[in-house]
């Protein structure tokens, strides 16, 4: 029953808006306002509607709604789906909180819960580190660099990111491994006696994550800072403001949309990261997304995987909304 509602919902919404638009057009009595089909001709209109409709409905909205619905069903073999055992249940979510129920004890699923909060916290930390790393460069590119140098540096920034993220993680693993370059260099310099297990300490993971999404932070920052009128900075300096003051109170407030955009993207990519934790994480590393992966391919419990995915999605949505609130930016400003 709910399934049918879910499936019909997008179509109903579209019909409602279409009717509203038609009504408004009729009432406006304005000969220059044309209906959609009048503006584009029959063939083109059909193409537009089918293309956008397929994408928005069949690829974006319905799969998401369906996944959420799926997460509220128990895991059943195909033959029993839709049958009497197929009821709505919170079992999958309960599993996240309480783990497998053994006997009558109520235990918390500490592993998963810890992984979740660790992931969120670490992602925020990574976002922050990423921002600190990228801000100076973005500022330099936007305001200080000459056009020639700008093109060169842009090229230099983009090239590493054409290398696949997995290979990049791989490269870091080589460098940070116990017999890797960094350790060998440190031993050779006499700084340490024994190789440091960067990977086991999750340092490799954090380095990898900050590294991976630098570009996603730099470009929005660059775009935002670039549109700042240089004169404002000059004026502030003229009035005697120290450089840190200028950055905090002149540049950053102006670049708010860019900062929000960069932070959102980096957070979302970090929290949802699969490659870096899998390849750079130590044996004890707990990252949420690989756990989601496991629900599917180890435990073969798809509804549970869907539930976990939904929890991750909620976290991301929550973060995006929080950023939008804190920075007071709209959704349109966050996307590239």
């Amino acid at each position, binding site marked *: 029953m709910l399934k049918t509602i879910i499936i019909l919902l997008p179509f109903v919404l579209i019909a409602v808006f279409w009717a*509203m638009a038609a009504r408004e057009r009729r009432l406006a009595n304005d000969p220059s306002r044309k209906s959609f089909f009048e503006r584009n001709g029959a063939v083109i209109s059909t193409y537009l509607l089918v293309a956008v409709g397929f994408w928005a409905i069949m690829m974006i909205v319905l799969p998401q709604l369906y996944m959420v619905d799926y997460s509220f069903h128990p895991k059943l073999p195909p033959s029993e789906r839709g049958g009497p055992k197929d009821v709505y249940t919170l079992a999958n979510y309960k599993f996240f909180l309480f783990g497998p129920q053994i006997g009558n004890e109520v235990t918390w699923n500490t592993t998963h819960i810890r992984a979740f909060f660790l992931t969120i916290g670490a992602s925020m930390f990574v976002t922050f580190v990423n921002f600190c790393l990228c801000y100076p460069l973005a500022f330099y590119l936007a305001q200080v660099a000459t056009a020639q140098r700008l093109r060169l540096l842009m090229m230099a920034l983009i090239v590493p990111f054409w290398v696949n993220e997995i290979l990049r993680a791989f490269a870091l693993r080589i460098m940070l491994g116990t017999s890797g370059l960094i350790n060998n260099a440190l031993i050779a310099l006499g700084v340490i006696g024994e190789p440091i297990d960067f990977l086991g300490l999750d340092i490799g993971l954090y380095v990898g994550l900050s590294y991976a999404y630098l570009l996603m932070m730099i470009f929005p920052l660059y775009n935002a800072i670039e549109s700042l009128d240089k004169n404002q900075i000059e004026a502030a300096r003229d009035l005697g403001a120290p450089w840190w003051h200028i950055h905090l109170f002149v540049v950053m407030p102006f670049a708010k949309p860019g900062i929000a955009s960069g932070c959102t993207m980096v957070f979302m990519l970090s*929290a949802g990261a699969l490659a870096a934790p899998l390849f750079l994480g130590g044996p004890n590393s707990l990252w949420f997304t690989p756990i989601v992966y496991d629900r599917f391919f180890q435990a073969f419990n798809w509804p549970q995987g869907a539930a976990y995915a939904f929890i991750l999605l909620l976290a991301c949505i929550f973060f995006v909304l929080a950023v939008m609130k804190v920075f007071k930016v709209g959704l349109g400003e966050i*996307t*590239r």
Partner: protein
Amino acid sequence: MNSRGIMKAMIAVYLGIFFTYLFGPLLVMGVTAFNTPTYPQAFPFQTFTTHWFADLLGDRDMMEGLWNSIIIGLGVICLAVPVGLAAAIVMTQVYWRARSLYYLVVVSPVLTPGVILGISTVIFWKDFTEATGTKQIEILGMDFGLYSGIFLSIIGQSTFICAYCMLVFLSRLQRFDRAQEEAALDLGASFPQVFWHILLPFLRPAIFSSAILAFLSSFENYNTTTFAILANKTLVTVLAGRVRQGTTPALSALAVIIVGISLIGAIAYEVLRRREDRIAAQRAKVAREAERDGMAAVPQAA
């Protein structure tokens, strides 16, 4: 001024560290691709060799993965570019009250973690193909069923790649002079003719750049593909598998190849860009000369 000098020095140091951080791992990896030891090592450098590159070609899984990646990439181009274009056009025409909701919906895939896109795609299409009986379609002994790794990867990746393409088209569309469409209509063109003769040629650069963007984004995608590809494989998933198992310099060799191709691509792009600039400057020069001679050479009409 001393503080200026210090500033400059600090900037130089910062840039130095930043780009070392950025390029360091890649350089190291590049070196290991040519080094003999089986465990990737840059230091000490033993003997120069290229046999890791040959190993790559012999790796059957990788070649199959490569083939699939290319097919999926082409499929994504065919899907994402037309849809992105349609979405951009609709964005300029959508009912104003619905605009924010429309924007929210079409931009949401960009803000959604890739794994969730992959998961939701698989779950939805599995049940959908079962319900509509399109799970397996036999044509000439080959299975064209919709529940396939290739198809689902195309769908899953396109979900967010369409958004990228749409943004590219939107920014190009903003510079379009609508009067041209009216002029074409006035001269007797039908709507499809206006679309085909006037709009598309204008959008050609955007079509190219979004196609390239689509292909590259698809090729290197992991998070979504790893769920959507089902039992099949792409180059990236094979790579992931290999990296999990262990490390060999053959993977470094792959990275070198990829960087090499990207560099060639970047240089080609720069060359093309310079050529375009030169042509535009030439045209502007001719126009200026025409203005100057304009009054002198106004002949009697025939």
